């Protein structure tokens, strides 16, 4: 705003203050016949001086914000109106009805000033209406106010202002119409409009961002205090027989609270970013409740105990002392409780900054370091700082250096209007990550410091998460490579078995065929005997080759599955073997692992245990396949079970490795009455994929 205009405004404000002072002086020196006032009665005017004062400051700082003009207007309307009513009273003595007109004009000014207060509700805090439709509320409000003022001029003989004569403009013919406007119907419409205006801030609150909400909260806070002051003052004022100084003092709190409303409007418009209204509200709630409790405690002890003890002399001195002691003792714990309660009411799940920091530190130390922990961290951060999106970024993440390792809310995308705040997470001089948060308003300096502190606290957790992730990755790689090794080994065995079958075996068969052809020919006995011997040798070589092929990878296992393959295995065992094997088909690697483990365990049982029978079982269910090989032999040595790598247990170690490679495990239990080798692994490929598995070669 330009200097001259500023000077002009200043002069205007000075004049306004002068008008207020003058009208108060007039009010205190009213002519006889009018109600006389005390100086303290005029304290109600204080807020109406505060309003234009704040208005001037807003106009100076934010010339574009109409709130300033509205505030200034309230001051002018009330001040000038006040002065005019007093002047009217004075003039009525000398000029009669002319004075009434001046009084009515002043009264109209005050009415318009109150209408402006309603308009203030409509346009606060930005100086604009909540929406285009609200123009109609504004117009109606102004129209009805003007009509009411006009009606007060036209009304006849209804002035309850002491010696003031009736309005000379009284319109007797239109009396009913005037009464309609000036009477209850008009009042009802006016009240409805005021209600609309009062609803405007609530409607605005729902649809606005964090910044506007904070501004509204400021005024809601001061208005709440004002309302409380009014309620308390008026309730106490009802008590009969109060001394005059007390009555005068009762007027002070509402007036001061009204002025505070003006001040809060100023803060809301100009400085709201500097102060945390939530903290202010929280403290106010806590101390108000505390004050109420102290008063209640005093009353309870003094009145209650006084009634019990009776009004013996001496007790009057003791009781207040006792009460004070009680209050002093209870004060600290009650205050702490109340503060915590107030925090919870105001911040909700949002923690106070100190709480957030300490909780965060505890978590960082105790949390199991996985990526869920990062998400919980982001969650805590979002709650604590009132952000609508938080991401935790890890440097050198597998998905790229700026990949968000965790976010809260999950999969959230920050809206365009929000502000980004961030803090690097540093561990031993290396930037290992970043905390990013999006919020409607920028962080205050305190909050940014808090975020930096939190980032420092988070470094331990983030480093642990990184280490854990790396370890898990490495573990996964190891597991996969072990699985690949086993699968490759099985494939290699199958390949060799096939080569054996297609190569050496076929050649031997061809030789057998040619030997067979010689059968029908005339041979000398020696040659015939040689041929017969050769045939036997070829047959036994073929038998050997079949055995080798089966040992490498039984074709029956690949072609028909575990049950037939294990049946064939059992048939060759030197002991009776009873089988209870699921007929299902499983993943090839799984079948291979189970087959070789059962085969190994069966061999152990037949060779070492002195058993007379073996039970073999393979069952599937609950997403896992398990097998057991149980003999009734003398058991294997304890040291073999405990350390499968040693002596005869080399096979056990192989079996354990084999099951581990398919993600399962092996259990060996041995006693004097026999040994049980049991293993399990997850069933990853169900029987339904059997055909597809068969197609594969």
């Amino acid at each position: 705003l330009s200097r001259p205009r500023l000077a002009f405004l200043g002069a205007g404000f000075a004049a306004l203050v002068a008008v207020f002072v003058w009208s108060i002086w007039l009010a205190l020196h009213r002519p006889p016949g009018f109600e006389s006032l005390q100086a303290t009665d005029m304290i109600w005017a204080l807020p109406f001086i505060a309003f234009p004062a704040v208005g001037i400051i807003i106009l100076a700082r934010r010339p574009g914000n109409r709130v300033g003009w509205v505030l200034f207007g309230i001051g002018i309307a009330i001040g000038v109106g006040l002065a005019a009513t007093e002047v009217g009273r004075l003039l009525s003595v000398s000029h009669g009805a002319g004075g009434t007109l001046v009084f009515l004009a002043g009264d109209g000014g005050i009415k318009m000033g109150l209408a402006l207060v309603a308009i203030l509700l409509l346009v606060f805090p930005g100086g604009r209406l909540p929406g285009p439709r609200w123009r109609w509320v504004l117009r109606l409000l102004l129209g009805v106010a003007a009509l009411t003022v006009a009606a007060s001029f036209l009304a006849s003989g209804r002035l309850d202002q002491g010696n003031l004569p009736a309005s000379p403009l009284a319109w007797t013919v239109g009396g009913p119409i005037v009464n309609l406007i000036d009477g209850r119907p008009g009042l009802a419409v006016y009240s409805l409009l005021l209600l609309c205006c009062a609803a405007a801030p609530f409607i605005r609150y729902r649809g606005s961002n964090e910044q506007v909400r904070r501004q509204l909260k400021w005024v809601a806070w001061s208005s709440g205090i004002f309302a409380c002051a009014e309620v308390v003052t008026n309730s106490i004022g009802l008590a009969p027989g109060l001394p005059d100084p007390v009555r005068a003092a009762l007027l002070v709190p509402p007036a001061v609270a009204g002025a505070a409303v003006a001040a809060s409007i100023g803060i809301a418009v100009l400085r709201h970013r500097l102060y945390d209204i939530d903290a202010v509200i929280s403290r106010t709630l806590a101390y108000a409740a505390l004050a109420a409790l102290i008063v209640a405690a005093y009353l309870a002890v003094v009145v209650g105990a006084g009634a019990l003890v009776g009004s013996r002399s001496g007790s009057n001195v003791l009781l207040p002392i006792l009460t004070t002691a009680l209050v002093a003792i209870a004060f600290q714990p009650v205050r702490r409780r109340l503060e915590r309660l107030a925090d919870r009411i105001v911040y909700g799940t949002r923690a106070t900054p100190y709480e957030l920091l300490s909780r965060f530190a505890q978590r960082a130390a105790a949390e199991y370091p996985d990526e869920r922990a990062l998400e919980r961290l982001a969650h805590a951060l979002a709650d604590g700082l009132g952000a609508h999106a938080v991401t935790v970024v890890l440097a050198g993440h597998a998905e790229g250096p700026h990949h968000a390792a965790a976010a809260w809310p999950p999969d959230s995308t920050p809206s365009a209007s929000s502000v980004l705040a961030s803090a690097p997470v540093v561990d031993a001089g290396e930037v290992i990550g970043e905390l990013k948060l999006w919020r409607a308003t920028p962080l205050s300096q305190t909050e940014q410091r808090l975020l930096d502190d939190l980032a420092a606290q988070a470094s331990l957790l983030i480093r642990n998460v990184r280490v854990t992730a790396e370890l898990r990755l490495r573990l996964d790689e190891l597991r996969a490579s072990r699985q690949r090794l086993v699968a490759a080994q099985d494939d290699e065995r199958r390949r060799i078995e096939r080569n054996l079958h297609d190569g050496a075996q076929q050649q031997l068969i061809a030789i057998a065929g040619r030997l067979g052809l010689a059968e029908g020919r005339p041979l000398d006995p020696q040659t015939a005997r040689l041929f017969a011997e050769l045939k036997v040798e070829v047959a036994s070589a073929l038998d050997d080759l079949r055995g080798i092929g089966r040992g490498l990878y039984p074709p029956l296992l690949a072609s028909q599955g575990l049950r037939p393959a294990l049946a064939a295995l059992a048939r060759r065992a030197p002991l009776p073997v009873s089988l209870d094997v699921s007929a299902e088909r499983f993943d090839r690697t799984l079948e291979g692992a189970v087959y070789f483990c059962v085969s190994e365990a069966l061999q152990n049982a037949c060779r070492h245990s002195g058993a007379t029978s073996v039970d073999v079982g393979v069952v599937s269910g609950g997403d896992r396949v398990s097998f057991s090989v149980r003999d009734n032999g003398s058991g294997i040595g304890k040291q073999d079970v405990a350390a499968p790598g040693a002596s005869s247990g080399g096979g056990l170690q192989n079996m354990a490795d084999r099951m581990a490679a398919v993600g399962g495990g092996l259990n060996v239990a041995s006693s004097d009455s026999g040994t049980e080798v049991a293993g399990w692994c997850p069933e990853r490929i169900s029987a339904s994929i059997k055909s597809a598995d068969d197609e594969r070669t």
Partner: protein
Amino acid sequence: MLSLTVVRVVLAEDSYLAREGVARVLESDPSLELVGVASDFDGLLTLVDERRPHVLVTDIRMPPGFDDEGIRAAAILHETHPSVGVVVLSQHDEPEYALRLLERGSARRAYLLKDRLAEPATLLAAIHEVARGGSVIDPGVVERLVAAQARFVTSPLSSLSAREREVLSLMAQGSTNEAIAQRLFLSTGVVEKHSNAIFSKLQLSEEKDVNRRVKAVLIYLAEGEMAR
């Protein structure tokens, strides 16, 4: 259609050496005529469609899968060409394969180990048996089964006499009572008596039809231990 003098044969075998070996054995029998040779599963089916043989002699394991294509071909032919006999030549001595071959009925089916090329007579006899509607299971497979079953005192087979075991083994190979009698130099009546004794000792319901008897005995031998 069916000539009583000449049996038309299609041969399926992917290994050159084995194919030549089998072909020579077939050529040595004037009552057989080799009408086509295939080297894989699809070629086999096409050839049977085209040449209408009486008997298919096939390897068990062939391209494309190198698994049990011979047996699968037999199952398909059971539907499409029920009159064609199938002799599966195999290197697997496990009865599971033989039982699979007999899954849809044992008539006109033979399961022989490839070792039999050294005994051309066995192979040729099997081809003729199948062409006549009979069934043959390689004695090697059956003997292994019987031996495996009879090892343990707990097995019902251990209650059979040596002669009864011989009879059982021949029944499992597909022989008729007459053939068994001839082979063991017994009268048919004695063989029948043995047969009754065997079925009652093993608690099997007696099966008069020879083809079905093969399967029943084979299943008993293969799964006797398991079926509890």
